[in-house]
């Protein structure tokens, strides 16, 4: 089997496994898994920028919130149905990622991290400032009647799970295809040696901008799906914490691997879920993980698997 078909088989296997898990797991866990799948889309979007292009953004919550508010504000105030609301959400995240990408790419390194952090912070504060429409920290609860797509009620556990799985699988295969395409390879070239990529004739700025737009749009899609499936949009999702989470998931799962974001997201979700039964200070776990990961395992779970056992892991 060559590398491409091995990779295709692996992705198919993961998707099949996730279908099976719905019948194996009790309802509480399949509900969690639906959440993890939606958040994993966010992590995959983040991974495209951080893991493959080597750009560390501390402001991805802005894109997530753009999708989330794009969908829920239009459902709540404009009285449209799910499909146009979803299109508005995606348009909003594309528009915001074009603006942020255009501005933030004038900087590099630490300055890029701080600029993205500041824009996201301004976005979060704006969501609070426009509390009249967004209801700030309290958030918007979407009506059950609004969350219906083509007569399918997305509030039921089974439809919710399979909708999340469908969107996840599409993104999963799209990313797997993308990172092996010429575009994906060029992004890796930029990560490894930007000067050299430029010398070889790649338009580095343009490729980076495209990476930010793709990554921001995936994050926005995840935000919109999250609001749609779980019926809630609040300013918390725009806060710094939600910019740190995808970084954590990707670092934990393995930056620059297609399967890493899902692994990291699931691992972290259950770690926090378990620890919050014992203490309210559950972010302590996140902090300790970040420190230990930077110290001992900068390549994450999938990175270790790739290094030890499966060198072909995409």
């Amino acid at each position: 089997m060559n590398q491409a078909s091995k990779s295709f088989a692996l992705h198919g296997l993961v998707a099949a496994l996730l279908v099976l898990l719905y019948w194996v797991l009790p309802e509480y866990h399949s509900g969690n898994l639906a959440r993890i799948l939606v958040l994993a889309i966010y992590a995959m979007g983040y991974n495209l920028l951080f893991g493959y292009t080597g750009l560390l953004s501390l402001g991805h919550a802005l894109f997530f919130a753009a999708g989330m508010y794009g969908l829920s504000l239009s459902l709540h105030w404009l009285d449209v149905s799910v499909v146009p609301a979803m299109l508005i959400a995606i348009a909003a995240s594309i528009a915001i990622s074009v603006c942020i990408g255009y501005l933030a790419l004038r900087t590099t390194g630490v300055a890029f991290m701080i600029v993205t952090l500041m824009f996201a912070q301004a976005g979060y504060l704006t969501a609070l400032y426009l509390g009249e429409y967004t209801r700030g920290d309290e958030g918007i609860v979407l009506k059950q009647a609004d969350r219906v797509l083509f007569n399918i009620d997305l509030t039921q556990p089974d439809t919710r799970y399979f909708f999340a799985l469908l969107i996840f699988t599409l993104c999963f295969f799209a990313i797997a295809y993308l990172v092996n395409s010429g575009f994906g390879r060029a992004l890796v070239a930029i990560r490894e040696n930007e000067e050299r990529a430029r010398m070889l004739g790649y338009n580095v700025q343009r490729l980076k901008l495209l990476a930010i737009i793709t990554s921001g749009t995936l994050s926005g899609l995840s935000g919109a799906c999250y609001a749609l499936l779980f019926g809630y949009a609040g300013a918390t999702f725009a806060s710094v914490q939600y910019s740190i989470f995808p970084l954590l998931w990707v670092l934990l799962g393995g930056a620059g691997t297609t399967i890493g974001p899902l692994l990291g997201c699931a691992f972290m979700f259950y770690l926090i879920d378990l620890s919050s039964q014992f203490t309210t200070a559950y972010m302590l776990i996140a902090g300790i993980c970040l420190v230990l990961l930077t110290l001992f395992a900068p390549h994450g779970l999938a990175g270790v698997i790739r290094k030890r056992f499966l060198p072909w892991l995409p």
Partner: protein
Amino acid sequence: MDFGPHLFLALLEGSITAAVLALTAVGLSLVFGIMRVVNVAHGEFFMLGAVFAWWITSMLGAHPVLGFVLALLFAPLLVGLIAATTDYLILRRINYNPERTIVATIGVLYIIQQLTLMTFGPEARPVTAPFNKRIALPWFENGADGFTLIWPWGLGTTTYKLAVIVAAVVILLMLWLVLTRTKWGLIMRATQLNSDMATAHGIPVDKVYAMVFGLGAALAALGAVLVVPIQQAHYLMGADPLLLSFIVVIIGGLGSLLGTVVAAVFIGLSDGIISVFFSPTLAKILATLLVAFVLIFKPNGLFGKSAE
């Protein structure tokens, strides 16, 4: 008795913010200038300073003045030690790689914040000021019956608030003297200029880094001890000082101490004025956007020198 006096009061409140902010931001700027790393956990060291101040004053149960003096001495020392340990255990091991340092200090931020939540609890706790005499503010008015002095006119301030401003100025002057007139300062400046060359001259760069990291955190803690009798100690209080210090350090020019102080005064005063007359959230939105645009279009800061 309308706009003028209120502006005066806003300026006074703003200069307290500016004084504390200058101490906190100079700590961040010092660390960035010498070690070339961004410490995201800086706000948590500020919070720890306030929490330790509460702890020292309430554990002793002594006279408020004695308790406060002890807090002023020991809280920054303790925080400095914690920061130096952090440097020794974590930052030194990742070779001060700028990006990994940010990720690691985000981790440290959550660890400190959540440990405080587990031990200190979610309540806000007050610390008694060592002296707190109210003084009414004078105001001059050039009205119908000529130039008159109106005193008192209602609003006032306290002796403690004025003392905070004086203390911050004294501490900053002392820091400047240490950096420019002593052997320690010389060693730090040598490390900043070229750490390899400093190593070659027998300067223990590792120890200097640990000390600078501790000193930066201790300055933040000092600012917190000064402000805690006005503002209460709370486990989430580190977020605002962190954001404001970032803003100040970037506008002042990364690593330039004088620029940092000037920017702290500018941001502190304008924060006071905007918060009194407009919405505080709007003030923060404008300030964060200002930082982003300064970094994009003038990466050396408004007061910084051009690139070397």
